[in-house]
């Protein structure tokens, strides 16, 4: 909320420094995608290459392999998404679990007997989901792929959080108490966009907007700029060292 953003004005710095939208960020994203793509193809490939199902029938046919790769991808994406979501409200739960459920629902519908009877040439995958998704190999492959794709991301994030935390990590809210707290679903306040504007640098450095002279807590922090015409009421009047 706005009070929180005013107490941690450094949260605007990543935007001004183009920290998340730069060539470096693109290259990191591209490397992660390359690695994930290779894992998502070669792990299922190696797992079913020379194998058969539990009753000796085909498991390495084109349709089963396609379904296996698709399932690996969907599950990995959902796990990665779960990692990225920082606030799990009821709506988030609905959409994440719902996506996964919809995928299986649509797959089974498209590969059902009824649709094949109606349009045989358009729905040739009849029976594939039924025959391959009850194989233990398939689910173990899905689990392995999800682990191999997501764990490096967790390691990377955790390492950087420990060694070189960004301002977002430092400004994390205190760990939530067990009862349902009322909180906004975004840490960044609505004034985010205005950090790209030319700004109020002159106003800030001239200290004209401060109601009372307060010692700055550390050299790195700069108080949030607000136009002199706006009169904030209550505790957000100026920067206070206790961070309230």
């Amino acid at each position, binding site marked *: 909320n706005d009070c929180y953003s005013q107490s941690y004005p450094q949260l605007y710095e990543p935007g001004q420094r183009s920290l998340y939208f730069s060539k470096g960020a693109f290259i990191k994203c591209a490397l992660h995608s390359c690695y994930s793509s290779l894992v998502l193809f070669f792990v299922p490939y190696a797992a079913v290459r020379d194998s058969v199902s539990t009753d000796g*029938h085909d498991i390495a046919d*084109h349709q*089963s392999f396609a379904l296996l790769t698709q399932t690996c991808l969907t599950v990995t994406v959902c796990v990665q998404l779960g990692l990225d979501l920082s606030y799990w409200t009821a709506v988030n739960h609905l959409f994440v679990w719902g996506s996964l459920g919809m995928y299986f629902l649509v797959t089974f519908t498209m590969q059902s007997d009824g649709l094949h009877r109606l349009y045989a040439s358009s729905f040739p995958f009849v029976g594939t989901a039924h025959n391959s998704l009850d194989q233990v190999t398939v689910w*173990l492959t899905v689990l392995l792929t999800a682990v191999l794709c997501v764990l490096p991301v967790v390691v990377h994030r955790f390492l950087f959080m420990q060694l070189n935390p960004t301002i977002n990590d430092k400004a994390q809210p205190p760990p939530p108490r067990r009862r349902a707290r009322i*909180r906004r679903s975004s840490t960044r306040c609505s004034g985010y966009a205005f950090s790209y504007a030319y700004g109020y640098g002159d106003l800030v450095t001239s200290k004209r907007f401060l109601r009372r002279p307060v010692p700055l807590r550390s050299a790195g922090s700069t108080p949030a700029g607000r136009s002199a015409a706006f009169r904030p009421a209550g505790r957000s009047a100026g920067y206070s060292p206790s961070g309230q």
Partner: protein
Amino acid sequence: MAKNQVGAGPFARRPDNSAFKQQRLPAWSPSLTPHTVLSVFYGLSLICVLLGIWLLITVQNTYQLKVDYTNGSCKKCFEMRKYPANATKNCICTANFKVPKAFLGDVFFYYGLINFHQNLRRYMDSRDDAQLVGRKKSLKFPSTYCKPFAYDENGLPIAPCGAVANSKFNDSFRLVYHQLDGPAVTVPLHRRGITWYTDKNIKFHNPPTNTTLQEAFQGTAQPLYWQRPVYDLDPEDPNNNGFINDDLIVWMREAAFPNFKKLYGILNRAHALFSHGLPAGNYSIIITYNFPVQYFQGKKEVVVSTVTWFGGQNYFLPIAYLVSSGMTFIAAIVLTVIHVKVGRDGKNMEE
């Protein structure tokens, strides 16, 4: 509703003060604390190592044997098949192999092809599923995807049309067991039940007929490379003719990779000698060598294999689990060290 009560005023279009609209829904907020991350890593490492060991033990209990018969003892047939003029001539050869240890349980026989790309896009498109499901209209007018295997030179529609059906594998095998103290015995195989249930009963149907199957296929021609018409593929079993022929169905399920194997038969354990499986000893396969592979530098083989609840013999998954558990454990150690040295007191978190 609150909007109606306010009416027209400066706050008339203000959204409702509900938790949903004001984004105040109760939320769970997970965060990457050292506690959770490290315990997840150690836990996952333990789970992966247990899974890996369990799978490794299971896979060790499967047996697989491959007998490559492209050349070698079948050289005469290999040379003969180089010339299309010999296509109608029969050629029979024998390949010998030894089973070192008895294969206990259900034993499956496969024919394998190396370097045959059934996953080529144009090849996979060259079929007509509507024809294979038994529609009369598609039988007489095959889909244009089947070109150039849709109509023969006399203008008759080909049934089944397409390149996939045309290149059906037509070698046949007879497995013989040479007993130490007794005559050679033909190993009995189940040649039914090798397809998926959905394939046999839903995806493939013969065209409906009141008379014989031959009548149903009147006015169609057999594919160019076939030796027998589709209604006479299995002279011994009348239920295994037409589009529902098991070998045809197994072949029509295209493989994903260029090196694949397809089920040929399952050991019939009703016979006294084979009631426990395949005994150890000397075997030979009598092969009717028809399928030419030198055009695509391919190879043919026979694969004999047992299966477990995990499937066939594939060491990749157990080894991959063990390796990833090792890597996860190393990562967990490294992260613990870093956390203890650098992050524990929250030194970096001050601002």
